[in-house]
């Protein structure tokens, strides 16, 4: 028997919005070492956790199609002679997709479940499904689930893509103070669903707190789509 899962809090930065003032969260030295996406991730996670009254979530999950692409691009440019600097180990080690989830675990000192999903446009939904299962099965009582994307200039032009997402959600097993119940998360292949206009993490943030029942659809040009069902409390 699976437990009920609730969305307790969230923090989402609107694409193109002004950068928050990170001084309250990061020292100058820390801020200088981080890419803008990493700073947005620290900010959104901190705000969502604060709202939920949590210091260290029992599970940390992130979804990202491209990972820390600015660092990937910097390392790639050095390799391909587009940057005179030698390939930087910092750019490499902070270019893997799991950089953000593990950076959050290191900052928050969380030794619990930690995973990152990278499945095209349903990366966040995959992380949400995993959190839904972890809490539903009683393996965690709460989870931080983030969606993070950035598109640096060279790869943006190559991929004909723009992406700018930073959102964090706290899921819990507790009904008290919840914004809604997360009834179900489904990943589906090969459907004929219309391509949604925005990433699911952003439409979810806009839908909260939700009244009544609501189905949100995610996906994109890839073969997989997602459906999530919410129920207002």
């Amino acid at each position, binding site marked *: 028997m699976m437990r009920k899962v609730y969305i307790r809090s969230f923090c989402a930065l609107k694409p193109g919005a002004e950068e928050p003032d990170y001084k309250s969260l990061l020292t100058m030295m820390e801020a200088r070492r981080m890419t803008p996406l990493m700073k947005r991730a620290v900010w959104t996670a901190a705000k969502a956790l604060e709202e939920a009254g949590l210091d260290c979530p029992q599970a940390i999950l992130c979804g990202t199609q491209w990972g820390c692409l600015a660092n990937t691009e910097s390392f790639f440019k050095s390799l391909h002679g587009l940057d005179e600097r030698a390939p930087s180990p910092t750019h490499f080690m902070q270019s893997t997709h799991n*950089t953000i989830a593990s950076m959050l675990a290191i900052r928050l000192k969380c030794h619990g479940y930690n995973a990152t999903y990278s499945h095209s446009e349903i990366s966040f939904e995959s992380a949400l499904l995993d959190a839904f299962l972890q809490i539903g099965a009683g393996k965690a009582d709460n989870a931080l689930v983030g969606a993070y994307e950035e598109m640096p200039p060279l790869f943006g032009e190559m991929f004909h893509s723009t992406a700018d997402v930073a959102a964090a959600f706290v899921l819990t097993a507790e009904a008290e103070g919840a914004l809604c119940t997360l009834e179900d998360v489904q990943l589906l292949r090969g459907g004929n669903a219309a391509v949604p206009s925005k990433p699911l993490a952003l439409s979810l943030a806009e839908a909260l707190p939700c009244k009544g029942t609501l189905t949100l659809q995610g996906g994109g040009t890839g073969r997989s789509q997602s459906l999530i069902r919410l129920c207002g409390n």
Partner: protein
Amino acid sequence: MPSRILITGFGVVSSIGRGKEESLVALREGRRALATPRYLKTSLMHLPVGEVDIPNRPGVPRTVLLGEMALREAVTEAKLGPADLAKAALISGTTVGGMDLTESAFPAYGGPHDCGSTTEAMADALGGFSMATTLSTACSSAANALILGAELIHAGKAEIVAAGGSECLSDYHLNGFNSLMILDSELCRPFDKTRAGLNLGEGAAFLILESEESVLKRGVKPIAELAGYANACDAFHQTASSPDGEGAFLAMQAALKMAGLQPGDVDYVNAHGTGTPNNDPSESAALRRLFGNALPPVSSTKGLTGHTTSASGSIEASFCLLAMQHSFLPANAGWTEADPDCILPYTALGESRSVNVALCNAFGFGGNDSSLCLKKV
């Protein structure tokens, strides 16, 4: 009491073998398959790597070629027909994805290189699969794909899951590991006093996980049980492991607890054992904390295959299954000199040893540490 997660088929591809038969022969002989690159285009031609002996196919990421080969072997052994595949889930683990295409086509656009696109291409190649997703937790990606697969079955969201991982070599991550100065220009020597780093490898493996109910319904014979698993975070450093191996210890301990087993029940540990100065003592500390003075045989198979990064969790779980089926232990290649900070690995060849319970470790950048507990049925 949740239903057991049974394994009804597996497929494995690495530099030591394209499929289970070749892999078994190489494991029994302790044959190392590490040499300078033949298929990879890179500026670092002097470094030994573990390449799978299959040619590149224009326009297809090698991650897909390797993954498709392993997935087909697994699906065939599990006797999954089109109707079974139609409702099955595919969970893959990768980090490199199709980066090889991006770099070989550059500055032209070589097609999307994102991780998920390689999983979808594998699903399309076999046909079916009602759902698919991709874990990307660096070198523990495939182990975490197996964990999600098992959770999907426990939750009743799937009856049959093909889970594992696939990763090709790329110039990008060979240079990345090189910039971190953790590649050995000689053959790697996990747990040895003179170890100087890892050799990178490539490969793929998928396991077919199935609910007991589905196994009975289909009348297939299970190979083993995925009796326990755990994912923990070392939460220490972006690339280095903690000196006390906290994440590794937590993962192994929780995997055994879930399986309802004691450390004394473990017959074999396939270690992460990369051969870097940092990983091996950290993992050794975790092993000593868990097993005390009663350490079971431990070996790293990365001295044979190289470190197959995101795919290593499912490749090495497959090696554990071969050890169970054929009653032998894979030897830790490249080890000659003891290091007081490291465990003494198992190095014997040709011994007959029964394996009922095996632990398989996979640790990634960022302290993404996972451990799997496999049990004979």
